[in-house]
């Protein structure tokens, strides 16, 4: 058998171009469905795992999918915010714990997530370097953000403007990086976390400015120049950076309870409590909905798998066509090699050995193709984690 295999190997090596084309045909026909399968599987695993680790979400009524994607993947979909007072309501007199999320802005293209420190325990996120955010203007960045933006503790990142053409719009805020999270291979790696109040400052609900009396004692906010034009006092300039010196000057106008949050992660202490809580939301006339992310995500995956089924059918057809073409190539090759086979037979080679020779040649070609498919699949598997995360986090 080793002699026959040796001959088969030498035949394959001698006809390099033909063998390479056959290998490529098999690899291309196989790798695509395999890669899609792996991607869909990774997508399913990641999206379902994230959803399963989040029992329920409260947010504004509307698309439950948008709400889930915003709360789990910080996708900045246009969803209506709910008032911060809903956080207290979601706690339902001790029925559940509630973590607010504010996800409306971005910094250097990465979502800025305003939340409370409870979020990190909830998601079991650990700070790898530095500390948690402790004061206004602090931020903790995910591992991927730190890696891609090359930021570390002590650096600053700037929140993105809503609209660069809107000169009267919100000014960007410099955020002080006080911590970098350990890698979690979740969307948290791709986000910038700030305290909820910092998020509200970015939104313009809170601001700080210099003490007018201290900076320019006795001066009015606006003064008139000799030409009669009005000139602002230099103390009116708003800060775009929160420092130890100016942090005390930051304040909010209005009632905190009415400030917006985009979603509230709710974790009831038990199934019974969760059901009671859900009942309250479903029976009320409020503009708030209570969703179970896992159900929403499973519905989404059902659609994905249906699409995948069409793709599988397509792959089977292409695979069948390729297989038939390969058979044709082998049959034509056999016809061309009829004399070679006849000579081997005359030299004492059995018909069975001649068949083995053919099987060996195809086996080697399939084997080499499968090695490439496995290498390709391993590569797809290796990168698909990032691809899926990228797809889930703001389509990156």
């Amino acid at each position, binding site marked *: *058998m080793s*002699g*026959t295999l*040796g*001959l088969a190997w*030498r*035949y394959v*090596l*001698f*006809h390099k171009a033909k063998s390479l084309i056959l290998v490529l045909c098999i690899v291309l026909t196989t790798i695509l469905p395999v890669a899609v399968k792996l991607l869909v599987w990774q997508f399913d695993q990641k999206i379902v795992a994230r959803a399963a680790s989040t029992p329920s979400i409260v947010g504004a009524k509307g698309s439950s999918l948008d709400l889930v994607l915003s709360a789990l993947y910080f996708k900045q979909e246009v969803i209506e915010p709910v008032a911060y007072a809903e956080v207290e309501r979601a706690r339902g007199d001790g029925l559940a714990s509630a973590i607010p999320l504010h996800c409306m802005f971005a910094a250097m293209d990465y979502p800025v997530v305003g939340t409370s420190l409870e979020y990190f325990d909830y998601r079991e996120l650990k700070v790898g370097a530095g500390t948690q955010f402790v004061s206004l203007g602090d931020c903790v960045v995910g591992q991927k953000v730190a890696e891609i933006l090359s930021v570390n503790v002590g650096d600053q990142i700037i929140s993105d403007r809503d609209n660069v053409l809107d000169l009267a719009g919100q000014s960007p805020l410099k955020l002080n990086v006080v911590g970098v999270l350990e890698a979690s291979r979740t969307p948290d790696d791709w986000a910038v976390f700030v305290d909820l109040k910092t998020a509200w400052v970015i939104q313009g609900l809170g601001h700080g400015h210099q003490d007018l009396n201290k900076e320019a004692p006795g001066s009015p906010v606006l003064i008139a120049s000799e030409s009669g034009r009005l000139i602002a006092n230099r103390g009116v300039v708003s800060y775009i950076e929160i420092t130890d010196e100016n942090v005390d000057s930051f304040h909010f106008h209005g009632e905190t309870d009415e400030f917006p949050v985009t979603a509230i992660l709710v974790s009831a202490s038990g199934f019974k409590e969760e059901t009671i809580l859900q009942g309250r939301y479903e029976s009320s006339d409020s503009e708030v909905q209570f969703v179970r992310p896992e159900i929403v995500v499973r519905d989404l995956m059902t659609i994905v798998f249906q699409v995948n089924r069409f793709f599988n059918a397509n792959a089977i057809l292409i695979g069948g066509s390729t297989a038939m073409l390969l058979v044709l190539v082998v049959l034509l090759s056999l016809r061309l090699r009829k*004399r*070679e086979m006849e*000579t*081997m*037979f*005359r*030299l*004492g*080679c*059995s018909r069975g*050995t001649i068949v083995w*020779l053919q099987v060996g040649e195809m086996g080697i070609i399939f084997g080499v193709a499968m090695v490439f498919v496995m290498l390709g699949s391993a590569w797809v598997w290796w990168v698909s984690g990032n691809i899926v995360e990228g797809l889930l986090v703001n389509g990156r």
Partner: protein
Amino acid sequence: MIQIENLKFQYPRAEFMLRLPRLDIESGKRVAIVGPSGCGKTTLLNLISGIALPLAGSVTVCGEEVSAMSDASRRNFRIANIGMVFQQFELVEYLDVLSNILLPFSINATLTRSPEVRSRAIEFAEAIGLKEKLTRRPAQLSQGEQQRVAICRALITEPGVVLADEPTGNLDPENKRRILDLIFQLAEKQNQTLIVVTHDMGILSGFDRVVDFQKMRFSDGAEESAGAVPGSIGEQA
């Protein structure tokens, strides 16, 4: 010793039938079988080597009745006792000279490819002047060189009988003689029976015996038949 008695053979759906009442070939002899195309020369080689089976009669080679053997036995018999040389050389294009010479050992599980066999192959290549071209492929050799490789391949298993079907048919006159001399020389060295099928009357000198299928006569050397039993060959069925 090769003995053929009352042989009848016919290919399926063919009108031609080969009939041969008797033919004896002694061991170690060099026999030429001549005749025009289609008179059954190659068929006779196939019957002697056990590739084809007669409809009637018997073929005995080296004391064993080939025509009575099973397929597997005939194949094993062929591996052990028969060496074959073809008109078109039939070398394997993707193997180099050395591998082509050793081909019977690669395709037959009953043959063991030992270091001695490899040494013998190299000796053969040296004897035919191709030692420097062991790694060349058939396409890189001249026709004469290709036929020399084919002869080595036929002899590498040290068979008792060498069957050559038009071994000089594709060669120029100068190469014809050289190849024949080479076959004679190598066969003589191993005391092998050599049967050469040819329709080239110009190469018959040097054979111990010539069997003329067309004239249905058998001759020893250049003389007319003596002692051989005449056969009726090439009759229409």
